[in-house]
C-alpha cells in the first residue's frame, strides 16, 4: 500500500499532517510514537475505518495495489476484506469459535461448500497457532477463551478472508507477557504471506518484530526507514529523544 500527502481532520482539528509512507508486501512495518500522536488514526485510514466516525475527513492519496481506496468506485466492503484489522482489545463475536472464523468467508461467499468452509476455518486457526488448542471445542463460545487465545482467534478471523494486508492496532497491549510472546512469534510466521502493519507503544516490541519502522509525533511522520537504522542511527533529533526515552 502507498500513502501520499495524507491529512486527516476530526471536525476542525487536524490529527494527521501530510504523511507519506509505503507499506511493503514482504515486510512487517511498525508505527511507533508517544500517545496521541496519530498512529492509530493513520492506521485506520488504510482500511477506511475512519468512515464510521462522524466528522472525520481524510484527504490525500492512499492506494492498494495502485487503486485509490477513497475513490467512489472502490467498494468499502471488499476493501475491508482485503485489508484486515485486529484491535487492541480482543473482540470475538459472542458466537462459537467456528462461527467466529467462518463469518468472514461466509459473508463474502468464499467457501464453495460446507466442507470447504470447515477447511478454511481449520487452516486459519492453524496459521494463527490456535488449532491444536481449540480443535476439540469449536462449538464453544469464543468469549470463553483466555485473552491471548481470543486475540489469536481475532487474528484467525482476519486471516480467514485471505487479506493482502493485516493492520494490527496495539494487539498485545491488553495481554500478559506469555501471550504477547506467542503473538509476536505468530507475526513472525505470518510475515511474507501478508503485509503486516503493527501500531505499538512498546519500542522493544517494534524492534523485535518489524523490518520497517515509522515514527509519528503530533500527527506528523517524523522518520521512516529500516528498523535497525531507526533504532541504532536515527537521523532526526525527535526520533533520538523518543528512542532514548527522554519523553513518551
Amino acid at each position, binding site marked *: 500500500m502507498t500513502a501520499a500527502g495524507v491529512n486527516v481532520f476530526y471536525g476542525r482539528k487536524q490529527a494527521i499532517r501530510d504523511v507519506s509512507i509505503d507499506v511493503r508486501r514482504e515486510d512487517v512495518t511498525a508505527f511507533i510514537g508517544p500517545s496521541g500522536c496519530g498512529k492509530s488514526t493513520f492506521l485506520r485510514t488504510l*482500511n477506511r*475505518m475512519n468512515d*464510521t466516525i*462522524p466528522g472525520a475527513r481524510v484527504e490525500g492519496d492512499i492506494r492498494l495495489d495502485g487503486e485509490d481506496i477513497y475513490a467512489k468506485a472502490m467498494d468499502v*466492503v*471488499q*476493501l*475491508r*476484506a482485503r485489508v*484486515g*484489522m485486529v*484491535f487492541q*482489545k480482543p*473482540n*470475538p*463475536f*459472542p458466537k462459537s469459535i467456528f462461527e467466529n472464523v467462518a*463469518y*468472514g468467508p461466509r*459473508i*463474502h461467499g468464499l467457501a464453495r461448500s460446507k466442507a470447504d468452509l470447515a477447511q478454511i476455518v481449520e487452516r486459519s486457526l492453524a496459521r494463527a497457532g490456535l488449532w491444536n488448542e481449540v480443535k476439540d471445542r469449536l462449538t464453544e463460545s469464543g*468469549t470463553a477463551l483466555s485473552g491471548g487465545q481470543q486475540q489469536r482467534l*481475532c487474528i484467525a*478471523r*482476519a486471516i480467514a*478472508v485471505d487479506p493482502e494486508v493485516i493492520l494490527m492496532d496495539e494487539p498485545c497491549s491488553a495481554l500478559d507477557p506469555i501471550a504477547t510472546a506467542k503473538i509476536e512469534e505468530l507475526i513472525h510466521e505470518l510475515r511474507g504471506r501478508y503485509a503486516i502493519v503493527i501500531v505499538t507503544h512498546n519500542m522493544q516490541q517494534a524492534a523485535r518484530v518489524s523490518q520497517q519502522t515509522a515514527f509519528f509525533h503530533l500527527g506528523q511522520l517524523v522518520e521512516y526507514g529500516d528498523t535497525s537504522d531507526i533504532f541504532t542511527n536515527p537521523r532526526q533529533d525527535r526520533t533520538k529523544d523518543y528512542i532514548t526515552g527522554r519523553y513518551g
Partner: protein
Amino acid sequence: MNKPLAPAAAERRPTDWQTPAMQRRVRRRYAAERRFRLLGLAAVFASAAFLVYLLATMLAQGASGFTETRIALPLDLRRHVAVTPAQLHGAGADLALAGAGLEGAVDAAANAAYGRQGGASLLSDGAWLRVRDAIKRDPELLSAPATIDVPVATAIDMAYKGDGTPESEAAVARLGNRLSRGLNVSFFTGADATDPTRAGIWGALKGSLLTMIVTLGLAFPIGVLSALYLEEYAPRNRWTDLIEVSINNLAAVPSIIFGLLGLAVFLGTFHMPRSGAIVGGLTLALMTMPVIVIAGRNAITAVPPSIRDAARALGASPIQVVFHHVLPLALPGILTGTIIGMARALGETAPLLMIGMRAFIAAPPGKLTDPATALPVQIFLWSDEVQKGFVEKTSAAIIVLLVVLLAMNGVAIYLRNRFETRW
C-alpha cells in the same frame, strides 16, 4: 527537577478526635444514618402494605365470583321430551332439544320439586342449558329419572354467598342442603350477559386478544425498524434530535389523547367499523410504538461498539452488521420493552372507550371488524351495573386481568435473565 516545598505557615496542631464536640458529631452521624435506613424500610413496608391491601380486597371480593351456587333438580324427562338418541349426535342436537321443549320441562320439574319455595324462579335463566349439555354428554338421562345440579337465579346465588335480601336468605335457609357450590366454568367460557350468573369474560378476553394481535403486529416491526434506523443509520443533526424528543414525549402522552386521535382519524376520516378490534388495535399500536422505539434504542446502544468494529473490519456491509450482530444482541432488551409496552396496552381503558369498544357485546367477536370489547373496559362496564351479582364478577375479572399482566411481566423478566449476554 523537584521544586522546593512552600514554606510552612504557623504550625498546625494535630487534630484531637476525642473531644466531646467530636463525639457528639459521631453520635449525631450514626443517628442520622439509622433514621435514614428506618425511613427507607418504612417506605418499603408502606408500599408493600398498599399492594397487599389491594390484592387482599380483590381476592376477598372476587373469589366468590369464580364459583356458582347450584340446586339439585330431580328430573324425569321421559314424558316431556321426545327426542331420539340418534338426534343427539351432531350439529342439530341443540336445535332438536330446544324444539322438544326442554326449557319448559325444566321449569315444570322445578315447580314440581320446589313449588313452595319459589319453583321455576329459583333457577337461573341458563339452567336449562346446563341440562341440555348434560343430556348431550349422557343421552341416558332421557330414559330414566335423574337429579342434575343446575345454576340458581342471581338472588339465591347472592344470598347463598352471604349478601342477599332477607327473602332470599329465608329461601336459602329453607332449601338447606339442596344447594351446593361449584366452579363457575361459564365465567371463563361465556360472554357478557344481563344476568350476572351467566356473565362471562371470554367475549372481552377474545376482544383483548384480537386487539393485542393487531397492536403487536403493527407496533413491533415499525418500532424495531425505527429504532434500528435512528441508532445505526440516521445522521446526528437537528432533525434527528427533534424526532428523538418527539418520540420521548409521545411515550408520556395520556392515553385518552390517543383515543381522541383514533376517534377523529380512524372512525371519522377512514370510517372504520366502530367498536371493531382493528380500530382498538390501531389506536393502541400508536400508543405502544414510542415505548418500543425507546426500549429498542436503549438495547441497541448497549451493544458494544467493538462488536460493530470487528464486523466492519471483516468487510460486513451495514445491513449485515445490523442483522447479524446488533439485532441478535439487542433482541432480549427489545423483547422485554415490547412485553412491558404490551402489558400497558392490555390494561388501557380510556382510548378504547373513546373509539367505542364500550358497548354491550353478547357474543365474542369473530373477525377483526366485529364489535368487540376489551377486558379492562368490561370491568369498567360491570362496575357500573346495579345488580349486586356484578360486584363479585367485577372483582373476579380484575383478578384475571392482574394474573394475565403478572404472567406477561414474568415472561419479560425470564427472557431478560435468560438472554442477558455477559461480556
